[in-house]
């Protein structure tokens, strides 16, 4: 066992042990704070080994892996489990553990008011999530990746439903799970097709064109679900029912990015399927624009960020579709930092005013300087303001997309960049500037160190990550050199323009009515068309089929069996009167029986 493999194993198993311990040692969990301590400690250990691994990768580019047979059939090993250490997994591991650690620390303060049992449960689930995510990240094959993929889905389900007493949270959790589970069937089928073609679950097989397209398309279905691409994005805004730190970690930084990570990971397969990549490019760009438009009309700060996440994931998918693995992955990384920062800052604000609505905030910048600055820095990074990390990664994406598919996706992404800046500007101006809209906002104060600390920590990569692009690329075995061309210039100017426009629209005091364009989008968004299609499908197709089959089961299948019983018993009842109680009838039976026998004896064919 080599050192990097050991780092990876430590990073993997520490949270696992923590989760197991917290699950098994009930008193520890029920007490509350020890659970937090254990979880955070495990995350820190995990983070440490992740960083060590990343450092190691800086010098050593040869991938290493350690696997053990997991499922076998006869002498054939069907599936293996283990760890794989290479640039992709190391980078992702750092991102995941860093954000997770920050979020967990943040949660110590944020979840403070929860009862101890719930508090313990929360951190147990966090530890479990980290384990699951690490399983996914360092998977040596797609099967283990799928396992982690499903596990993070479940932790997502459980964490969205953390406030399970709220019916809306319960619904959102189940909805999230159903939608992603539906999409996961794609991944499962993809695995089946892949295995049938190659006999293993590796991602470096050479496939025929058709198989490659089929496999990658099926994989992409899972990506669409997990990374909330149109039209399976519907679960992500609802998922904001979960605690805000959860949204930060799972539904912004890491779990939703797993879809993108899958494509990055299985890039050798996707590289063989240009058709799939075109679909990704189109759908990614469309989602980016579509989600940005929807983000525009949200007044709930978390929902705005959720649609923004969709939109940014669209960027990544588009980049991957355009063939830029690095672009997608880099944007994933930076996005993880700044979106986690945004969510945590939003969480801090929400914690202060006890409301998600930006209209209930206002003027928070003065009361909560750290929170506000964090949010603003995050927003600027998201808007692609030059110098911040988002700028570099978004630039890389745009560069890759440029010129593809008659530049339509490019244009869409450009427009999205503008819209992004605009809606983030709106949030910043409404929530953090101007006057407090109510008593609570007026008396808001800065959160404690456990909450502000992570914000400050996360601000660092948000600002500087862009400058490490070359290192990042180096670890992936690729090259990256930034040059300020027209693309970045246009994009960043559009971003600035969006901010400026947002200032003019929202930055000068509260408004009663929306601009006409925004109102139009709002009206369209309120139709909830996509959601309604799904609801219609569920109620009028799935449930109808189910009740139809249940009817068949009751009345036809079971009915026939009852009929058999009925037939026998009724025949017996009908035959009873033959036994009349009248002796001559009995004698008649004897005589007729004898006559029957005699007929056989005389006329029968026995000779």
């Amino acid at each position, binding site marked *: 066992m080599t050192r990097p493999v050991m780092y990876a194993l430590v990073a993997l198993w520490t949270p696992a042990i923590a989760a197991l311990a917290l699950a098994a040692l009930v008193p520890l969990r029920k007490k509350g704070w020890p659970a937090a301590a254990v979880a955070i400690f495990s995350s820190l250990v995990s983070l440490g080994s992740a960083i060590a691994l990343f450092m190691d990768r800086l010098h050593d580019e040869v991938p290493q892996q350690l696997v053990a047979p997991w499922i076998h059939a006869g002498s054939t090993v069907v599936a293996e489990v283990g760890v794989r250490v290479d640039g992709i997994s190391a980078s992702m591991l750092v991102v995941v553990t860093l954000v997770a650690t920050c979020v967990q620390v943040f949660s110590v303060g944020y979840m403070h008011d929860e009862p101890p049992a719930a508090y313990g449960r929360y951190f147990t689930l966090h530890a479990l999530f980290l384990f699951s995510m690490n399983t996914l990240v360092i998977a040596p094959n797609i099967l283990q990746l799928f396992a982690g993929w499903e596990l993070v889905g479940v932790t997502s389900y459980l964490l969205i439903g953390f406030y399970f007493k709220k*019916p809306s949270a319960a619904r959102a959790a189940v909805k999230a799970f159903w939608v992603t589970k539906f999409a996961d069937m794609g991944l499962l089928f993809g695995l089946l097709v892949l295995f049938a073609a190659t006999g293993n679950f590796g991602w470096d097989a050479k496939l025929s064109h058709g198989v490659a397209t089929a496999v990658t398309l099926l994989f992409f279905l899972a990506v669409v679900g997990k990374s909330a691409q149109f039209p399976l994005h519907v679960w992500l805004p609802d998922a904001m029912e979960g605690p805000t730190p959860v949204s930060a970690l799972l539904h912004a930084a890491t779990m939703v990015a797993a879809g993108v990570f899958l494509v990055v990971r299985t890039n050798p397969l996707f590289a063989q399927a240009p058709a799939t990549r075109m679909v990704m490019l189109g759908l990614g760009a469309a989602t980016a624009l579509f989600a940005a438009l929807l983000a525009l009309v949200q007044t709930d700060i978390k929902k705005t960020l959720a649609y923004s996440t969709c939109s940014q994931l669209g960027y990544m998918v588009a980049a991957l579709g355009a063939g830029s693995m690095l672009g997608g992955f880099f944007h994933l990384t930076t996005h993880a930092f700044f979106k986690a920062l945004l969510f945590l800052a939003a969480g801090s604000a929400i914690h202060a005013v006890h409301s998600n609505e930006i209209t209930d905030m206002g003027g928070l910048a003065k009361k909560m300087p750290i929170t506000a600055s964090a949010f603003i820095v995050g927003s600027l990074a998201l808007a692609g303001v030059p110098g911040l990390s988002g700028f570099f990664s978004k630039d890389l994406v745009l560069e890759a997309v440029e010129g593809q598919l008659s530049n339509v996706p490019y244009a869409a992404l450009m427009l999205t960049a503008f819209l992004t800046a605009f809606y983030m500007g709106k949030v910043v101006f409404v929530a953090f500037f101007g006057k407090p809209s109510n008593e609570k906002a007026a008396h808001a104060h800065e959160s404690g160190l456990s909450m502000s600390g992570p914000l400050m920590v996360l601000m660092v990569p948000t600002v500087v990550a862009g400058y490490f692009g070359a290192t990042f690329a180096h670890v992936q075995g690729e090259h990256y050199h930034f040059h300020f061309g027209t693309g970045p210039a246009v994009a960043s100017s559009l971003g600035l323009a969006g901010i400026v426009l947002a200032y003019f629209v929202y930055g000068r005091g509260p408004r009663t009515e929306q601009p006409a364009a925004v109102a139009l989008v709002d009206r369209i968004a309120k139709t909830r068309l996509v959601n309604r299609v799904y609801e219609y499908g569920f109620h009028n197709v799935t449930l109808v089929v189910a009740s139809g089959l249940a009817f068949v089961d009751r009345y036809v299948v079971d009915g026939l069996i009852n009929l058999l019983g009925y037939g026998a*018993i009724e025949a017996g009842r009908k035959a009873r009167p033959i036994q009349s109680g009248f002796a001559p009838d009995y004698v008649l039976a004897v005589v007729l029986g004898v006559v029957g026998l005699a007929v056989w004896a005389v006329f029968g064919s026995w000779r």
Partner: protein
Amino acid sequence: MNSHLLSIIVAAPAIAALIVMFISERDGANSRLAIRLVSLVGAAISFAGSLVAIRTYDKALGGLQRVEDYPLIPSFGVHVKLALDGWGGPLLVLTGVILFAGVLASWTVKTRDREFFALLLVLTAGVFGVFVSQDLLVFFLFYEIAVLPMYVLIGIWGSSHKVPARGPFKFVWNIFDIGGKQYAAMKLTLMLLVGSAAIMAAIFVLFLKAGGTTFDMGVLANTKYDRQTQIIVFPLVWLGFGTLAGVFPFHTWSPDGHASAPTAVSMLHAGVLMKLGAFGVMRVGMVILPEGARYWVPVVGAVAAINVLYGAFCAMNQTDLKYIIAYSSVSHMGVVMLGAATLTTTGWNGAVFQMVAHGIMTGLFFALVGLVYERAHTRAILKMGGFANVMPGVAAFFTLGCLSSLGLPGTAGFVSEFMVFLAAWKSQHYFWAIPGVLGAFITAIYVLRATRSIFWGPGPSHDFHDLSDAKKTEWGAIVILGSCLVILGFWPRLILDYIDPGSVEYLGKVLAPVSALARLP
């Protein structure tokens, strides 16, 4: 001692049952405790024995090990021949676990507990017997012993909850005043025994065509039956055992039966007994009648695929908790049969693994449902809500069961379902995998719906005043089962290593070219 391990495993519950029957009931609480302790000890001996048996099974060697042979009626070739094969070990352990958990789960049985535990133990002795019998007639004998006590167990201790006869001919049952659990028990018993009748006919043919001198399954498996015979007899075995495995359309005993059975009985029945059916189809039908199996697998697999989807859809429409779980069993047993029908090592491994996985999972489910029912006095999920607030442990384990049932990686359900789907996709009938995977998705819909409406949402209404979390022995049951699910999910080779040699050996017989088989008169 060691050389009679299998007999001890089989006999321990039976002897415990006998002892239980002779414990005086007059002594109040003491005798109640004695009954339970004796049962628990019997179960523990079997459980421990099965663990020893599996640990000492030489997986590299494979084949039959620990052979014990007691002549019962040697003149007619009936021997109580017990031996452990690759499949037997894991299934023995499964039975041991479920029995142990079942005894713990029924600690609070109130009425006529002496008879209850005795019957429960007798039933399990039959199950153990089936898994280790190498003599077809003794196999059948144990099978019947396992099936029959169910009638009494459901009829007496079944839920008083009305399980009405359904369908256009329900009035028939009312004529005889057979409503509720008696109806369910009667239907279950009669349907299963119709299946037994088919098996019996098949056994006759197998025995007589092999020369009429022995029932040894090894010998029968090496006998070359002519094609015509195989094609005629295989469906008898398939449907005969299949009735117990819930093969469509002979599954309708299962929902009613499980819904009205008491907790431990549901656990054993869905957890272990239904596996006997699938085990019989594979061990008797496919291994002894390879050509018939090869001829019929397209039908077997297609019906299994129907089972998966049909069961899942039916489960979705239920509002009674036990019905949901029962239909889900029908659906999951479809996965087992699907794996069997692939005639591949992966598929067979998956099928046997699914037997174990589903056994544990459904055992867990029924244990929990029993707990919920006992405290809530209703099984209508639409009336419940927010139970997680007062019974968080139950909620957690229920969720775990749900996750395993929908095939979540990290639980045992995933391993088996994945193997089966993989094998199905690779077999000649790749389209079988599609309903399989869809079925898993539908499962996700209905189990999570059920979880949500029972456990989530605002706290329980005032109608439920004696809700509480699981208690002492009940924890024992659910923790054992729950941890088995997770352990097997993470490290399936704990049992896969034993299943595999069995599958390889038996599949070799099924797929062997005809000429390679010894020709017997």
